[in-house]
C-alpha cells in the first residue's frame, strides 16, 4: 500500500510522479479525466436548458457522437441510481426480518412488471416536478431505465448478503466490526462478483429498452430526447436505411468499447473477491486494468483521497460503536409507527384507486387483455422452444470442443451484446420484403433477444461435462440418441434451466417492444399482451395499461413459481454433477 509521508498530506503535488516516462504512462488517464469533465459540463448546460419536448432528432452521421454521449450519460446516471437503490434495498432486506418479509415479495412482483408500464406514472411525476427544465424529462427517462435495471441487481446483492458463511459473520461480530466496517470489508466484497455480473446484465437491459425510454408518446404529448435510441427510432419511422445502419454501427461500437474499457477491467479486478481458498487456474485478465494498476498517478491520488477518507469513516463508526448505545427514544419509536401507518394507509388507498380504475375497463378491453395474455404466453413458450431447439445442439457442439469454443465464444458474446431492439428495424425491413407481418416478426424479434441466454448456458454446461463420463459413453458405445438421453441432456439440464428462466423473463419483457412497432410512419402490431400495453401507453389509456400490467405481472410470477422454480429444484438435486 502506498502511504504518503506526513508532509505530503499538505502538499499534494509532491505526491505526483516526477519522472517523464511515468508521466507519459499516465497521459491517457489525464486526458480521460479532462474529457470526462468536459462531458459533464456539456450535459449540465443541456439539462438546465428550457424544456423542448419536440426536439428535432436529426438523421446525420455528424450528430451521432453527441447522441451517443447523451445516451451513455443517461445509462450511467441510471446505473448509479440503481446501484444506490440496490445497496439500500438489499441491506435493509438482509438486516431486518420485518423489512425482509415486505421487501422480497415486493421485489419479486416489481421485477415482473414490464418497463413500459412504468412509463406514464414516472413521466407524469417527473415532468410535474421540473415543469420548465429539460431535467424533468431527462429524469423521467433515467428513472425509466432504472426500473429496468435495479431489480436483478438488488436480488443478487440480497442473496449474497444472506449467503455469507456463518463463521465469517461470527468473526465480524466477535471482533465487533461497526456496521460500516462490516459492510465495507465483508458484505460488499462478498457480493461483489454477483453484483458485477448483474450490473452488466442491467446495462445490457438498459440498451435493450433505450429506444422505448428515449422517445415516447404520453397522451397528446410526443416526447423525444436526443440520443441513440431516439435516433434509431426516428430513422425507423422515416425508413432511412442508411441512418439505421449507421446508428446500429455506432451503438455496437459504443457497447464494445464500454465492454473493453469498463466491464472487462472490472471483471478482472473483481476476481479478488472470489470466495475460494485456492488460486484459480485461469483468471480473467484485462490490459486496461493493468494500465490502471501501473499508473502511479492513480495510486497517489487514491492514497490522498480514498484511503484517508475510508480510514476516517471507519474509525469514526468504530468509535461510535464503542460508545454505549442509547435506547431508542420513545419519540423515535413513535415516529416509526407513524411512518408505518402512513405507508399502510397509502398502500390501501392506492389499492382502492386501482380497483376503482379497473372498473373503468370495458368488456372488449378485458377480452383484449385475455386474448393478448393467451397469445403472448403461447408466443413466449414457442420462442423458448425454438431457441432451445437450435441452441442446444449448437451449444453442445461448441462446448465439447475447446478449440471451437475459443473462437466462437467471443463472437457470440459480441453478437449477444448487440441489443436486439436496435436490429428490429433491419429485421422488419427484411420481413416486409419477404412479406411476413409482425405475427412472424415478433417471434423473430423475441428470439433475437432471448436465445443468447440459453446458448451461453448450454455452452457452459457442455464444457463442464467431465471427460470420464464422455469416455464411459465411448467405452459402452453409446452414440446418437442414446448418448443424448443418457449423458448430454441430463448433464446440461441445470444449465439449460438457468438459461430458460432468464430467457423467459426477458421474453415477457421484450414482448412489449416486439409486438408493437412503429416503422416508416406506420404502426405494425399483432395480437398480444405486449401490444396491449404499448398501445395503452401510446393512447394514455390508463385502465387498460393497469389491467394488462397486472395480468402480465401475475402471469410471470405464477409461471416462475409453478414451473421454473420446480424445475430449478429438480435441476439442483437430481441433475447436479458433483463428483
Amino acid at each position, binding site marked *: 500500500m502506498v502511504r504518503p509521508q506526513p508532509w505530503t498530506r499538505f502538499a499534494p503535488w509532491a505526491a505526483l510522479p516526477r519522472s517523464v516516462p511515468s508521466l507519459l504512462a499516465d497521459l491517457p488517464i489525464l486526458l480521460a479525466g479532462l474529457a470526462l469533465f468536459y462531458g459533464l459540463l456539456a450535459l449540465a448546460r443541456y439539462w438546465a436548458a428550457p424544456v423542448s419536448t419536440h426536439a428535432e432528432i436529426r438523421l446525420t452521421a455528424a450528430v451521432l457522437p453527441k447522441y451517443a454521449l447523451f445516451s451513455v450519460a443517461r445509462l450511467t446516471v441510471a446505473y448509479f441510481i440503481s446501484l444506490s437503490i440496490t445497496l439500500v434495498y438489499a441491506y435493509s432486506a438482509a438486516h431486518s426480518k420485518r423489512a425482509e418479509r415486505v421487501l422480497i415479495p415486493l421485489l419479486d412482483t416489481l421485477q415482473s412488471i414490464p418497463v413500459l408500464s412504468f412509463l406514464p406514472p414516472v413521466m407524469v411525476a417527473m415532468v410535474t416536478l421540473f415543469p420548465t427544465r429539460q431535467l424533468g424529462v431527462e429524469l423521467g427517462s433515467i428513472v425509466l431505465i432504472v426500473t429496468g435495471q435495479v431489480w436483478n441487481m438488488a436480488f443478487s446483492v440480497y442473496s449474497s448478503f444472506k449467503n455469507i458463511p456463518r463463521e465469517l459473520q461470527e468473526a465480524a461480530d466477535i471482533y*465487533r*466490526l461497526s456496521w460500516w466496517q462490516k459492510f465495507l470489508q465483508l458484505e460488499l466484497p462478498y457480493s461483489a462478483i454477483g453484483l458485477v455480473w448483474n450490473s452488466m446484465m442491467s446495462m445490457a437491459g438498459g440498451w435493450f429498452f433505450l429506444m422505448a425510454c428515449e422517445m415516447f408518446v404520453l397522451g397528446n404529448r410526443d416526447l423525444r430526447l436526443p440520443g441513440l435510441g431516439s435516433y434509431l427510432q426516428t430513422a425507423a419511422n422515416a425508413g432511412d436505411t442508411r441512418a439505421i445502419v449507421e446508428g446500429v454501427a455506432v451503438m455496437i461500437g459504443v457497447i464494445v468499447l464500454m465492454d473493453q474499457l469498463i466491464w472487462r477491467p472490472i471483471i478482472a479486478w473483481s476476481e479478488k473477491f472470489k470466495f*475460494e481458498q485456492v488460486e484459480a487456474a485461469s483468471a480473467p485478465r484485462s490490459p486496461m486494468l493493468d494500465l490502471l494498476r501501473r499508473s502511479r498517478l492513480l495510486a497517489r491520488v487514491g492514497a490522498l483521497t480514498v484511503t484517508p477518507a475510508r480510514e476516517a469513516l471507519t*474509525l469514526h463508526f*468504530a*468509535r461510535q460503536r*464503542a460508545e454505549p448505545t442509547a435506547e431508542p427514544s420513545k419519540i423515535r419509536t413513535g415516529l416509526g409507527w407513524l411512518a408505518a401507518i402512513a405507508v399502510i394507509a397509502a398502500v390501501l388507498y392506492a389499492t382502492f384507486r386501482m380497483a376503482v380504475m379497473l372498473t373503468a375497463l370495458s368488456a372488449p378491453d378485458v377480452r383484449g387483455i385475455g386474448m393478448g395474455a393467451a397469445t403472448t404466453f403461447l408466443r413466449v413458450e414457442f420462442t423458448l422452444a425454438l431457441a432451445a431447439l437450435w441452441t442446444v445442439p449448437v451449444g453442445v457442439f461448441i462446448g465439447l470442443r475447446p478449440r471451437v469454443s475459443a473462437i466462437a465464444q467471443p463472437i457470440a458474446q459480441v453478437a449477444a451484446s448487440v441489443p436486439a431492439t436496435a436490429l428490429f428495424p433491419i429485421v422488419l425491413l427484411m420481413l416486409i420484403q419477404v412479406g411476413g407481418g409482425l405475427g412472424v416478426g415478433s417471434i423473430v424479434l423475441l428470439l433475437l433477444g432471448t436465445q443468447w441466454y440459453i446458448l451461453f448456458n448450454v455452452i457452459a454446461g457442455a464444457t463442464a461435462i467431465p471427460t470420464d463420463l464422455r469416455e464411459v459413453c465411448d467405452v459402452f458405445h453409446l452414440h446418437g440418441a442414446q448418448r443424448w438421453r443418457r449423458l448430454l441432456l441430463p448433464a446440461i439440464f441445470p444449465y439449460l434451466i438457468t438459461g430458460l428462466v432468464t430467457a423467459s423473463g426477458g421474453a415477457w419483457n421484450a414482448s412489449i417492444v416486439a409486438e408493437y412497432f412503429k416503422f416508416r410512419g406506420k404502426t405494425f402490431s399483432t395480437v398480444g399482451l405486449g401490444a396491449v400495453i404499448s398501445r395503452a401507453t401510446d393512447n394514455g389509456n390508463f385502465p387498460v395499461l393497469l389491467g394488462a400490467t397486472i395480468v402480465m405481472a401475475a402471469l410471470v410470477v405464477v409461471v416462475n413459481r409453478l414451473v421454473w422454480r420446480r424445475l430449478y429444484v429438480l435441476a439442483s438435486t437430481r441433475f447436479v454433477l458433483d463428483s
Partner: protein
Amino acid sequence: MTAAADRLRALVVQNHWEQALALLRRMDVEAAAELIMKLPFEEQKRLYCALPIDFAAQLAGEFPYYHAYVLLHARPAQEITAIVDAMPPDERVRFFEELPEEAWQRLMDELEGKQAAGAPEMPRAIAEAPLPDPPIIEARKIEKVFERPGGGNIQVIAPTDLSVTPGSIIALLGPSGSGKSTLLRMLTGLSTPSSGEVLWHGKTFAEEKPNVAIVFQSFALFPWLTVLENVEVPLLARGVEHDERHARALKTLGSVGLEGFESAYPKDLSGGMKQRVGFARALAVEPEILFMDEPFSALDVLTAENLRGELIDLWLGKKIPTRSIFLVTHNIEEAVLLADRILVLGRNPGRIRADFHVPLARPRDRNGAEFLMYVDYIYKLLTQPDLEAAPLVAKSAYQMLPHARPGGIAGLLEILNDRGGKEDLYRIADELRLDVDDLLPIVEATTLLGFATTHRGDVELTPVGKTFSEADVATQKDLFREAALVHATLLKQINNALASKSDHAMPLEFFRDILEEHFPGQEVERQMDTALTWGRYGEIFTYDSETDRLRAPQPVTQAEAG
C-alpha cells in the same frame, strides 16, 4: 523360601536397604516379587519405596495387578510416573488393561475430583493452587432451546453451570451433535441462551462487552484482504489509528511466525499458514480468553501437530497475552495433550458429563502411560451408558440412531474379529487414524444392534457379531436386518407400518413427521438418512426418491419370515 523371607524382613526392619536390594537382585524378578509378597504388607510398602526406579518398574509387572497398584502409590507422585514410564511397553499396556474395577473407580473418582484434599494415592504433578482465582466467566444454568417449525421446543443444551478460571487451558470435548459449538457461542456472547445467564467478571454482555477472540475451524479470513489487513480488521474495529494498528499487527504476525507474508492473500497460503493468520488476528486484540472452535480439524495431521506444539510453546512461554484458552474439539488426544481441564459433553440434550483436571507435566508424551490412561478414561466415559442422565432423558427420549453406515459397522466387526474379538477403542482410533466423531457412531451402532458390547473403553464382539464378521455378504444382510428389526425403533416402526398397509408403501414424509417430534431439524435429516441407508442395506424396504415413498421389498420376504 521362608528362610529367605525372614532374612529379607530382618533387613527391612533394620533399614538395610542396600543389602535387601542385593538379595533381591540375585534372584530372578518373578521370584523376587513372590518373596516380597511374603512380607507383612506395611513392610512391603516400605521396601518398595526404597527400591530404585528401574528395579521397581521391573517388579511392578510381576505383582498381581491390584497389589502393584497399591505398592506404586506408596511412593511419591513423580516417582510413580517415572516407574510407569520405565516399565517395558507391553508390560505397561497390560498393566492398564488389567486395571481392576476398584482401581478404576478410584481413578475415576480422582479424575472427577471427588476425592478432595488428602488423597495421597494419585499422581499429582502439579500442586493444587492455594486459592482459586475468581473466575473470568461464570455461566449460570444456561440452556439453549430451539423452536421447532411445527411448534414445540427441542432442548439442545440442558441447563448448565460452567466457570472459566484464569491460567488454564480448558478443552470442551464431545461427540458431534452435543452442542459444543453452541456452548462456545453462548459463552462468547455470539448467541444468547434461552434461559440462564453468562457473566464476565460478574457483568452481563449488555453491561460490558468482554474482550474475546475466536479462532475458527474454517479460518474465517476475509479472502479479499491481505494477511496484514486481516489482522488489522479487529484493531480497526476498536478504533486503533493507522500507525499503531500497523505496528501491532506486524508484531503479532511476527509472534506466530508469519514475517514476510504481510502482503500475501489468504488464498496464496497453505491451510496451516491460514490458521496462523487466524491466530494472529485473534491475538492482536489481546483477548482475555482465547476461544478456539476446532482450530486444527481442517488441517492435515502433521500441520495440526506442529501448530499445537507452537501454541503450547507460546502459552507456556507466556508470549501470548490471554489469561485462559478455551478449546472446542472432538479429538480426545488433542484435548489430553493441550488441556489443564477437560469438560466432556454428552448429547441429546447436550450437558456436561464430566469435568476433571489433567495434572500431567508438560511437555506431554502421547505414548506416556498416564497420557494413555486419560485417553482410555475418556473413551470409557463416551462409550459407557449414560447413567446419570437417564432419568432426564427417559421420559421423552426417542431412540437416536448413530450415524454409521453398514459398511463401517461391518468393517469394525471384522477388525475386532481379527484381533481376537476384543480391543481398546483408543488403539483402534489411533491405528486407523479415526477421530472420535468417526469411530464413536460406528461403535454405538454395533452395540445398538447387539453385535458388540463396550466396557471401560474396550469393545468386544458378541457371538452374533462374530457370526456376522465371518459371514458372506448375503448372510450379513440377513443378520443386519434381524438385528435392526429387533433393536432399532425407527426401522421397527417403518417395517410395521409397511406391513400393515395393503400396498406395502408409505410416504417417507410420514416418518419425518414422527422424527420432528423428537429431534431438531438438522438431526431429523440425519436420522432419515441413517434409517434409509440401514433399511436399504438390510432390504427392509426400498426407497424411491422421485415419489418420496418407502416400499416393502417384495411379499416373498414376508412368506419366508412367516
